[in-house]
């Protein structure tokens, strides 16, 4: 246990990096994913194709593979980003594919009559989405979006593979020195569980709030 108590600051620092990675990635994924979902449900065919192609690509390539390509491939064409930024961007881009599908399924869950009624009173496509469909769709999106959040929080550990000093990476560094894998990974695991738990709690809170307004 000394290995943990003697390095509280070091471990917490790693957890902070993990939280930063997760939040940056998640916010990025929410923004990009929503735009993509709008592409996919919209009436413009080229945009629908772009949205579908994006999802099919990023949902089907392992995050680690994409991250290694991003980190070690891009410098060959003259683009070098910091390891942290690379990891956050990769997380966001992969997460966006999942967010897109969650949002799309939420939109599809709104009865088509709602959109038809909105169109009938003369609202444009963007107003139909913004004022009528999305607010209702958001309720059904919460659980899958919480899933995406948890997936990204746990998936952020992949950044350890490219040298970002986040929680998993620092756990590995501690092991190197103290050979206490079981204890250190238990602690790291507890942090991940806590983060996922908080995410799920936030999701439940949102659901309750949104449900009350129904």
């Amino acid at each position, binding site marked *: 246990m000394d290995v943990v108590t003697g390095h509280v600051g070091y471990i917490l620092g790693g957890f902070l990096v993990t939280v930063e990675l997760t939040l940056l990635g998640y916010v990025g994924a929410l923004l990009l994913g929503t735009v993509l979902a709008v592409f996919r449900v919209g009436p413009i065919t080229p945009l629908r194709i772009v949205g579908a192609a994006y999802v099919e690509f990023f949902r089907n390539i*392992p995050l*680690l*593979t994409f991250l*290694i*390509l991003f980190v*070690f*491939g891009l*410098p*060959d064409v003259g683009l*070098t980003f910091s*390891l942290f930024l690379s990891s956050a961007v990769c997380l966001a881009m992969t997460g966006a594919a999942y967010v897109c599908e969650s949002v799309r399924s939420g939109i599809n869950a709104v009865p088509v009559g709602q959109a038809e009624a909105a169109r009938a009173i003369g609202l444009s496509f963007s107003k139909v989405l913004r004022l009528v469909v999305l607010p209702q769709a958001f309720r059904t999106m919460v659980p899958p979006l919480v899933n995406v959040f948890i997936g990204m929080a746990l998936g952020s550990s992949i950044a*350890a*593979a*490219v*040298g970002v*000093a986040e929680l998993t*990476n620092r756990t*590995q*560094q501690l*092991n*190197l*020195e*103290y*050979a206490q*894998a*079981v204890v250190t*990974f238990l602690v790291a695991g507890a942090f991940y569980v806590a983060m996922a738990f908080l995410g799920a709690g936030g999701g439940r809170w949102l659901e309750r709030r949104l449900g009350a307004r129904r």
Partner: protein
Amino acid sequence: MSSTVLRRGGPAVAAAALVSVALAACGSSGSTPQPPGAGAGSGGSSYDSIITGGPKADASAISASSWAQAVQKQGYLRRGGTDTGPLFSLKDPATGRVTGFDAGLSQMLAHYITGRTDVPNLEKLTITTVDTRETLLQNGTVDAVFATYTITPARAQKVDFAGPYYESGDAIMVKKDNSTITSVDDLHGKKVATESNSTAALALKQKVPDAQVTLFQTDEECQAAVQQGRVDAYVLDQGILVSDASTNKQVKVVGQPFTQEPYGIGLPKDQGGAKQFVNDFLKKIYSDGSWAKLWKATIGTIVSGNPPTPPTIGSAPGS
């Protein structure tokens, strides 16, 4: 992990890094091309004859160790190690055989105990990482760990170390055109890469605490980071860096080793006289020349000169 294919730089390095990481991620099935010149150690008859030419244990020595008796009974050694370590323990994808200095010693030990001569079946490899080595020894998944396993007092609290059987040291790799870094003292404040499962990270922390250390998982990634200017230098075992630089013309190795890395054989703690038994084995292969022959056939294919004098058993703190 070295091959001419991955040394051309550019996209090839990234692709190779990708492949190796992808494979590492799948677990034990990693297959990595052979280092140049390692053909002699890739499982040919000369390599096999070095293994089977090693000593055999007396019945009395085996009966004195319950650990050795158990290995003899199962007929092979359950080794913890890697199959992606150039020179030390590398799998030949063509034959599926794992060979190298660590692999060879393990096979030699298995031959010493069992007397069997079918070299490919002398050991069963379980892939270990820095995070799992001690635990796999403690819970009895493996009989011994041969994995460029540096003996440290912290590790010796959990497992026993026989040896040291090899002494190495960390050196520095930089880009070919770099003239500012020539020794470890030039690394202050610099960005330095190393492998995440090496002890070089610890050595750096002690010698140049103000260096910014980045840990990558594989040798290829560290090299790519140097070539692409992501880091200023890459620190790892000199033998591995020299073998890398022998095929990658964009990098060079500078300075002399600045650490001492005594490699030991990890054994379960206080169990069945294992440590005494394996140390006796090491003494035998030191004196009958088997150790030197194996060195010549593996590490000696990259490092020129005669085999060094083997380190003294028990000379490292923790052994």
